[in-house]
């Protein structure tokens, strides 16, 4: 298992993150494939100026829903401004609720 996979949100998605459809496609392409093969997955929000619930829920809650709550042990959220951190925590709560404590296969 390789060590850390890092994605740069501002470089890949822009400084304003607002479209849930884009977030979902990004997650499928850039995050999901690495969850099972990396020890850490770092979501780097440095440079992200603003985000909304649509984007963050599609990006993060779906990760928990599909990989189970244990994925939190692998995820690192880097460079979050305070409002982005609120959106991260809220998306995690949503994901936990939706995953129902599911343990991944």
């Amino acid at each position, binding site marked *: 298992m390789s060590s850390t996979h890092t994605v740069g949100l501002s470089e890949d998605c822009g400084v*304003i993150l607002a479209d849930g459809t884009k*977030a979902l496609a990004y997650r499928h392409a850039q995050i999901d494939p690495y969850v099972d093969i990396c020890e850490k997955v770092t979501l780097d929000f440095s440079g992200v100026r603003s985000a909304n619930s649509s984007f963050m829920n599609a990006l993060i809650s779906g990760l928990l829903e599909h990989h189970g709550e244990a994925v*939190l042990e692998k995820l690192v959220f880097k*460079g979050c401004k305070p409002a982005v951190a609120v959106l991260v925590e809220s998306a*995690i*709560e949503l994901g936990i609720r939706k995953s129902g404590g599911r343990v991944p296969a």
Partner: protein
Amino acid sequence: MNHFQLPPLLHAGGLLPFLTMVGKPLEDGDVTIDFSQLRRVVPASMVSLAAMVHLWEKQGRKVRFSGISECQILGYLQRMDLLKSCGVTLKELFQRHDARGRFFPVKAVSQPIEAMAQEVANCLAPGGEEYDHPLSGLFDTIAYVLTEVGNNIRQHSSGVGFAAAQVNRQEGLIRMAFADNGMGILKSFQTVAAPWSIDATDSDAIAKALQPRISCKAGEPNEGVGLTLVAELVSMMKGSLLVVSGKGVARIYRDGLRAFEELPEGASYRGTLVAMSFPENAASRYAELLHNAKVKAGILQPGRGRATFEP
């Protein structure tokens, strides 16, 4: 022929009578809008008029604009791009000054929503894009509201939508408004066969849309918190919110009281209007507002942070 005489005051008090007037069944034929008596407008009346004009034209009606030369606020309507957004081009007898910090003119919600959010937030909160700027919180609030409501227009309405905004320095208020001419909130729920929506009214549908985790498009990527959080944010800032969709009208007052009613005289607004006003300085602590709005909506429990953050 359908003739609409715009009243002198198309502001907060005149808005619902205006929506009632344009929301009644039309006779066959063209539409004439008379601007001669119009003296005051707000963003909500401008975007809803633009949305209606586009709807009527889509229905194959010719829309005529009369009394424009007698309109006392013609220059203002031109500067706000209301006439332009309705396809009317007139010679401008004034110089266009910078809109930054004052208003955002009527504009179709058609470009990528991130770009529009940046444009509107930069316009209403100039300098706020810099995180340490005093208007940084206002920038964030505007970007949040615009992207969530704009996403609703683009993803759910199947119609054309418009946005406009105004900074009223005297009152210290930001006014933002969005209107589309699409299917409306109730029909949007019905298209995804939400069981409760079969016998629901338009007001029921608006009330549902204001609840967390009720989405017109179930599952990823929609979690149904967009309008809910916009409403909570506005309430946290002691602002007011108006949502009109079909026959339904919902208001959230500055004291947080919510009221639901129907447009009178059987009128039905085709599409959805979302209009709000909030004190400019209330947006300064945006992260705290967002946190509290999420807690109040029941989608975030304080003190239960599970994320691993790194600087």
